[in-house]
């Protein structure tokens, strides 16, 4: 089969089984758009800003496990995509971004809409390619998908100069079934000797804890993790990125750990003698002050990326490999072992954990006359029967969603953890809804975050992706305000906007339903009403307690055992603000 470069790109996507590409046209990609026009297999979703394209593709990837695909033009199209590429990179999300480039002969001449996309994205991609030869295009596409989806996943940029897609130049096309890259051979199974050592250590632990993260979601190892945890009877905590990989409603789950994790999770980490980290990367939001991190523990770490191991925290037993096969290997060894975890020690350990649990660190004022954001999330959980896909933006609302919506399945909780990108939630929700049109998809957002990609409301209408937007409107950049309250004697410098749009009208202007809720008793009925409108996107503008803070919290420079709890549980933190 002979195809031109533009057709090769699109045909490669078909051969990869790509359902959707998220994109925005421009000069350098016109040949590609013409090729898209002439086929129906790969559906193109026209966003309203290239950042939206990247987040939508990212949301699609997080929900499905399949790579998200983006198409942008050169210059401003490419630079607009960078935030979304970096977002995916930090959370190890598989994506392939095709960017147009000026024609090869003028590269380097400051041509119209030229930017060095390969250079700009180098620090925030897993790899990138500049295509120089149309006969290598199909192979490059294959390599891009291969690199993006294997090992530690990540975004890969393919920068395609316009002349490469020239419709008049046709070359034989054959999509390779398989590619190998001699310098790229990610580990799969773990080293037997290391696994044996790890199992021995686990079976002698007195106060063990399992600390698992996004790697379990990315590695589709939820089932193995559950079996592993049940077999051992150990407590388990998840990072923000790992939520859902272990059912949050299970009694062995002690909640999220880290800065806004639960008291019991952080205390158990601090007091533990053996930690097994599974697909988690010891992020600073998790560890708190490093020299106070888990002072008594010997650490086992399973990670597919050797560079994640002993990066910030030295570990005793590193295991390089994918979580799923490694957990299978471990389970087998545990079953064969004559040693069993000490019942007595575990009983004592669980008693201790129950004491920490009894602090009820997530209690809040349920009597308040104001709408408590935590209450909204709890109601959202009930109304969606805990079975929705929840995307979020970045801020306090993100933490409340993580804390008060117990996720029981992986890939249901979709948020930007590593980069913390405001503007992520809405486009991501569109990507998720396209993947799962029959599931409920809600975007938990804030009055500041939602304005960063609000234009995608228009995309949601065009492609009929009915989502529910839960705007926890505190008229503040709440997370910033909270830090200013704690660390800057409440000098609220620019964490407030004097003008916030009327979101109801805004939603209506975009063709959706808007609802404004300002009383606690209205929350439940409004949510029910919104979710009953199956085929409409509904924007719920919920006016919440403006001064509510996220608790508990490890303030910066402190260790896990040094959490700030709510002043007194059950009392209101409402304060008058100037």
């Amino acid at each position, binding site marked *: 089969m002979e195809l031109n470069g533009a057709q090769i790109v699109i045909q490669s996507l078909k051969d990869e089984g790509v359902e959707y590409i998220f994109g925005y046209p421009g000069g350098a990609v016109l040949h590609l758009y013409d090729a898209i026009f002439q086929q129906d297999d790969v559906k193109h979703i026209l966003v309203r800003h290239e950042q939206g394209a990247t987040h939508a593709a990212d949301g699609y990837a997080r929900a499905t496990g399949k790579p998200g695909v983006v198409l942008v033009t050169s210059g401003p199209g490419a630079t607009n995509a960078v935030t979304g590429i970096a977002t995916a990179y930090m959370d190890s999300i598989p994506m392939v971004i095709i960017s147009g480039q000026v024609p090869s002969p003028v590269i380097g001449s400051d041509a119209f809409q030229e930017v060095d996309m390969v250079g700009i994205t180098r*620090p925030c991609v897993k790899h990138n390619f500049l295509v120089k030869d149309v006969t290598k295009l199909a192979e490059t596409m294959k390599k891009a998908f291969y690199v993006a989806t294997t090992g530690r996943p990540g975004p890969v940029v393919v920068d395609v100069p316009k002349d490469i897609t020239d419709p008049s130049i046709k070359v034989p096309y054959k999509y390779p079934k398989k590619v190998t890259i001699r310098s790229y051979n990610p580990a799969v199974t773990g080293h037997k000797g290391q696994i044996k050592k790890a199992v021995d250590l686990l079976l002698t632990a007195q106060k063990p804890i399992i600390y698992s993260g996004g790697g379990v979601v990315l590695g589709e190892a939820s089932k193995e993790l559950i079996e592993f945890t049940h077999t051992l009877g150990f407590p388990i905590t998840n990072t923000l990125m790992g939520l859902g990989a272990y059912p949050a409603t299970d009694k062995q789950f002690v909640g999220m750990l880290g800065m806004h994790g639960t008291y019991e999770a952080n205390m158990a980490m601090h007091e533990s003698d053996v930690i097994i980290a599974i697909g988690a990367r010891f992020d600073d939001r998790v560890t708190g002050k490093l020299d106070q991190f888990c002072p008594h523990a010997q650490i086992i770490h399973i990670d597919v990326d*050797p560079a994640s191991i002993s990066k910030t925290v030295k570990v005793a037993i590193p295991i390089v490999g994918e979580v799923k096969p490694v957990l299978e290997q471990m389970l087998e060894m545990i079953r064969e072992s004559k040693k069993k975890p000490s019942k007595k020690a575990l009983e004592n350990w669980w008693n201790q954990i129950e004491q920490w649990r009894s602090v009820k660190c997530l209690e809040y004022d349920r009597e308040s006359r104001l709408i408590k954001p935590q209450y909204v999330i709890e109601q959202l959980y009930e109304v969606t029967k805990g079975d929705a896909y929840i995307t979020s933006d970045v801020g306090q609302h993100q933490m409340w969603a993580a804390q008060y919506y117990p996720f029981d399945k992986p890939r249901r909780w979709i948020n930007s953890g590593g980069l913390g990108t405001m503007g992520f939630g809405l486009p991501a929700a569109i990507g998720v809804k396209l993947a799962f049109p029959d599931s409920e998809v809600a975007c938990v957002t804030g009055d500041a975050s939602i304005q960063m990609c609000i234009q995608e409301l228009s995309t949601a209408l065009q492609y009929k992706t009915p989502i529910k937007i839960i705007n926890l409107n505190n008229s503040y950049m709440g997370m910033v305000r909270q830090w200013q309250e704690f660390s800057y004697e409440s000098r609220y410098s620019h964490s407030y906007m004097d003008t916030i749009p009327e979101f109801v009208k805004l939603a209506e202007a975009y063709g959706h339903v808007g609802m404004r809720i300002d009383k606690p008793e209205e929350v439940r009925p409004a949510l029910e009403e919104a979710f009953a409108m199956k085929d409409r996107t509904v924007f719920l503008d919920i006016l919440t307690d403006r001064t509510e803070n996220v608790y508990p919290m490890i303030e910066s420079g402190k260790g896990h055992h040094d959490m700030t709890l709510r002043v007194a549980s059950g009392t209101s933190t409402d304060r008058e603000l100037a």
Partner: protein
Amino acid sequence: MRHIISILIENESGALSRVAGLFSARGYNIESLTVAPTEDPSLSRMTLVTRGSDDIIEQITKQLNKLIDVVKLIDLADSVHIERELMMVKVKTNEQTREEIRGMADIFRGKIIDVTPTTYVVEMTGPSSKLDAFIAAIDGDSIIEVVRSGPTGISRGEKGLHL
């Protein structure tokens, strides 16, 4: 500690900038970097001198290995190895100093490879410390220009960095 990291890397445009970019982005120290093609035209060999604690060097080698273009690498500090650097020094000369510079170059096994009525160019190879010593031994005011290649290295014995 000082480490010499030897890298086999795909001979592709952009490969060098990936390595250089990694060092600046992660704040690693880079003392010198040399790169040239190998007997296999698809591969370049890069020699990189850096300094850091064992933990930092471990991260550096892991991060380098993570780059898709990096095929293989070794830390020469882990084994017995030979280190060589090439230097050319242009010095001002006159009747009185010619003899002295020639003598010094001899002691350091350097060669004089260019002569004009007022200058010499001395060529010298050796471990970096030897080149440093030569610079220290001659009169600093007479030096017009110093060009150094940065060290390259190779391990002793049958072990080697190849595919």
